């Protein structure tokens, strides 16, 4: 008998069909990854397995059997006995998924006592036991701490410990590592791997990240618009995708590997695939010139004589330092950082959360004053903002004023410059909208009428309206789905080529940074630990931290994933 058996599942919220005719099976001890972009219905499926849609007004059809319980027909009591005891769930955001007011150990004990008739003491002991099991050091003491006293990775471990407490047959993990840094993600995925090997429980992993799926599951099921696109063993589906959508999805995934798999994108043939391929080609061309390979003529950097380099520097930061807070709480976000950005090149700045990369980006554009050090634009020291240095922001929702039409937002730099001729403004905005792949007719629409990717394009158009020399992109694609991400990255590359812009690309995603950057700076705790041409940094990292970061990136190839896992163990030991 299978552990999970879903037949013809349909979930509808009002008129929206989130899941439509989905069937899946999972054998005891097996693992399956549900992969899809936002809105594909993958999380809805996970929630349906535990009957979490009851009472929400969602219409659920079809049959769901989990560990011998018919979820659709089960009584309240039967459902409660299933939840946690036979099938446990791990959620995305570990901070908000735990009660902030109670000690972590007490919360685990509470859940344990729901399912096991044991004393308070015994439950507490069990909590300490599972916390220890998931690798929380000094579990007895830490079990008395509240969630906010834990780091992100520790919280996720604690949630996994809660899931383990009742010894479930099935673990449902809904985007378990999405909120985590890449090195922590690797640790959590390794932990899940180990636990599965030890306990023999089945795993249903929901993720948007094909790499995470490849790392942790045997089988994969690709979803789109609530339906199954393709399913099969990981190596088969990711190695030789049959469906066009799977190919498109894989083509859009940026690779961190040295060998640039440009072919994967080119073979896809679909629109986005072509775009991704173009992006890859563009990125490669730029990188090629930078690393000394000839033949990519026409790019400004290619014709630089070494002596002209100094004149070519558009933006330069010298000894930047920024502190926040005062007294005992003082904390240095950026510590003595110097970078230079030349005309037409892309400088990638990569780092995990808290590394100071966003603070650095904001100082470069002048939104934040450095505590010490200076930013020089075209050779002159500069205070505050300058229209020629623009920024593209991370969050496509908050970066546009919801109350103003996108045309108005884009026209802002024009009006600020003193342009008063409405016809000329309108014409220029139309030009810019078309330049970033939107329609001139979008002028009078409001931000909420656009998708995330389109809003990001509007943000780029607004930056372009100022006729900038440099654009600092702060995590410009991290809020977007992977296919959209590829399109926006391609657009940035294209604009850079056509306009000779200098780009500073700040991101946490190592693969995306490699895809776009000529030079890369790796940041950690406010300092740059390594800087150099992209290929050098990625292929022959000198700094141990860079090596650690690269080893943590999930691979699409299960074999490579196993190798990396071994490499991570070695690094951890070393």
């Amino acid at each position: 008998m299978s552990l999970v058996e879903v037949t013809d599942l349909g979930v509808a919220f009002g008129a929206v069909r989130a899941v439509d005719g989905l069937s899946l099976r999972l054998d005891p001890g097996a693992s399956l990854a549900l992969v899809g972009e936002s809105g594909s219905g993958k999380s809805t499926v996970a929630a349906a397995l535990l009957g979490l849609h009851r009472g929400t007004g969602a219409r659920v059809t079809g049959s769901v059997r989990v560990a011998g319980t018919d979820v659709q027909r089960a009584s309240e009591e039967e459902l409660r006995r299933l939840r946690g005891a036979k099938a446990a769930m791990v959620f995305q955001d570990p901070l908000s998924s735990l009660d902030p007011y109670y000690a972590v150990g007490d919360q685990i004990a509470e859940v344990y006592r729901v399912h096991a008739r044991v004393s308070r003491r015994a439950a507490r002991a069990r909590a300490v036991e599972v916390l220890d099991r998931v690798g929380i050091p000094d579990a007895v003491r830490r079990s008395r701490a509240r969630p906010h006293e834990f780091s992100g990775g520790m919280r996720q471990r604690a949630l996994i410990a809660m899931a383990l407490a009742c010894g479930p047959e099935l673990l449902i993990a809904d985007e378990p590592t999405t909120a985590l840094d890449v090195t922590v993600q690797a640790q959590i995925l390794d932990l899940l791997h180990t636990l599965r090997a030890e306990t023999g429980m089945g795993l249903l992993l929901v993720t948007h990240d094909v790499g995470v799926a490849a790392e942790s599951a045997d089988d994969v099921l690709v979803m789109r618009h609530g339906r199954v696109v393709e399913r099969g063993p990981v190596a088969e589906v990711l190695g030789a995708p049959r469906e066009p959508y799977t190919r498109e999805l894989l083509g859009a995934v940026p690779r961190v590997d040295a060998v640039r798999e440009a072919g994967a994108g080119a073979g896809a043939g679909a629109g986005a695939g072509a775009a991704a391929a173009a992006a890859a080609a563009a990125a490669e061309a730029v990188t090629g010139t930078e690393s000394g390979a000839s033949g990519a003529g026409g790019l400004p950097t290619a014709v630089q004589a070494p002596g002209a380099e100094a004149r070519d520097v558009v933006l330069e930061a010298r000894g930047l330092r920024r502190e926040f807070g005062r007294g005992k709480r003082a904390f240095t976000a950026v510590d003595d950082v110097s970078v230079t950005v030349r005309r037409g090149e892309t400088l990638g700045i990569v780092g995990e959360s808290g590394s100071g990369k966003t603070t650095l980006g904001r100082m470069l554009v002048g939104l934040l004053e450095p505590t010490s050090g200076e930013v020089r634009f075209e050779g002159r020291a500069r205070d505050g903002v300058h229209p020629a240095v623009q920024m593209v922001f991370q969050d496509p929702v908050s970066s546009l004023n919801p109350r103003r039409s996108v045309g108005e937002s884009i026209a802002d730099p024009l009006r600020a410059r003193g342009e008063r001729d409405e016809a000329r403004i309108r014409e220029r905005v139309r030009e810019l909208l078309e330049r970033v792949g939107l329609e001139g007719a979008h002028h009078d629409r409001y931000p909420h009428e656009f998708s995330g990717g389109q809003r990001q394009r509007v943000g780029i158009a607004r930056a372009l309206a100022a006729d900038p020399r440099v654009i600092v992109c702060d995590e410009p694609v991290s809020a977007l789905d992977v296919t959209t991400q590829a399109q926006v990255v391609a657009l940035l590359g294209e604009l850079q080529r056509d306009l000779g812009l200098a780009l500073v690309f700040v991101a946490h995603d190592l693969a995306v940074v490699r895809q776009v950057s000529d030079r890369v700076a790796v940041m950690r705790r406010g300092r740059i630990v390594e800087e150099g041409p992209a290929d050098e940094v990625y292929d022959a990292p000198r700094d141990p931290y860079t090596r650690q970061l690269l080893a943590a990136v999930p691979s699409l190839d299960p074999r490579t994933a196993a190798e990396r896992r071994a490499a991570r163990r070695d690094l951890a030991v070393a």
Partner: protein
Amino acid sequence: MSESLLASAAAGTDTPVPAAPGARPFWRRLRAQRAALVAAVVVALLVLVALGAPLLTALEGQDPTTYHPSLVDSARGGVPVGPLGGVSGDHWLGLEPQTGRDLFARLVYGARVSLGVALAATVVQTSLGVLVGAAAALGSRWVDQVLSRLTDIIVALPLMIMSLALLAIVPSSFPRPLLVTLVIGFIGWGNLAKIVRAQTLTLKGLDHVSAARLSGWGTWHVARRELLPGLAAPVLTYAALLVPMNISAEAALSFLGVGVKPPIPSWGQMLTAANVWYQAAPQYLLLPAGALFVTVLALTVLGDGVRTALDPRAGSRLRVGTGRKEGSA
């Protein structure tokens, strides 16, 4: 190139999320609440009554200040002559005991005082709150420190006590309703200033504000264009809740005899006198009490409705299954 990009964007999963800011959904969401709608109608009627007080009393043929000693029974201590406290074609709601002033006229003129003082005080409170709160959020550290401390102190002062005391020392030559307005207005802005400061700080951190700065606009322009519209919702919400509070405050002060003073009629003032007369002339008590109750209730419900309409999140709560049916919350 761009066309193919757009095509693939449309084909992909990257679809716009329907969210709806702006004015039209606000009215739609407000109209969708039956209670708020009823309250709005009641408030509109009250405002009409207040505005049309001279007209209404002219229709009745009375005014709020004329004594009718002939219509009260001085032998029984001044109880109005006639049924139901002197209700008649001439005096629609009867007469005030002892003085024989027309109750209907006093009630509708009382609405004028009540609503007028409350609204004007709300305007004062809102202006001060927005000004101080925004200045604290946008000003230097030093300005913020001073203004925040000041706000703390203002919040700590009990409104009733301060108004009570202040009203005592101002010479009686000063127009009383104006004075009550100013006193309530100048003491009651603290919480709004706190809200505005917090909201401004939040807005200031939003990327579109940074983007506007990068465009090259000056601070003042950015504040006016990007920040102020974002403040409208929370300020409106809180102001809507201030109005009924101010109505109660004015009534309370007049009840204690330090608010609006005779001969200007006020509901609170009528209640003070009615205390003694509830057995002989119950409507003298019930009319102002009922008027106060209905007014404050209608304004509170309307304020709640405004808040729900401005904060759609309030409606979409409880999405996670509880295993049982739930109302629309």
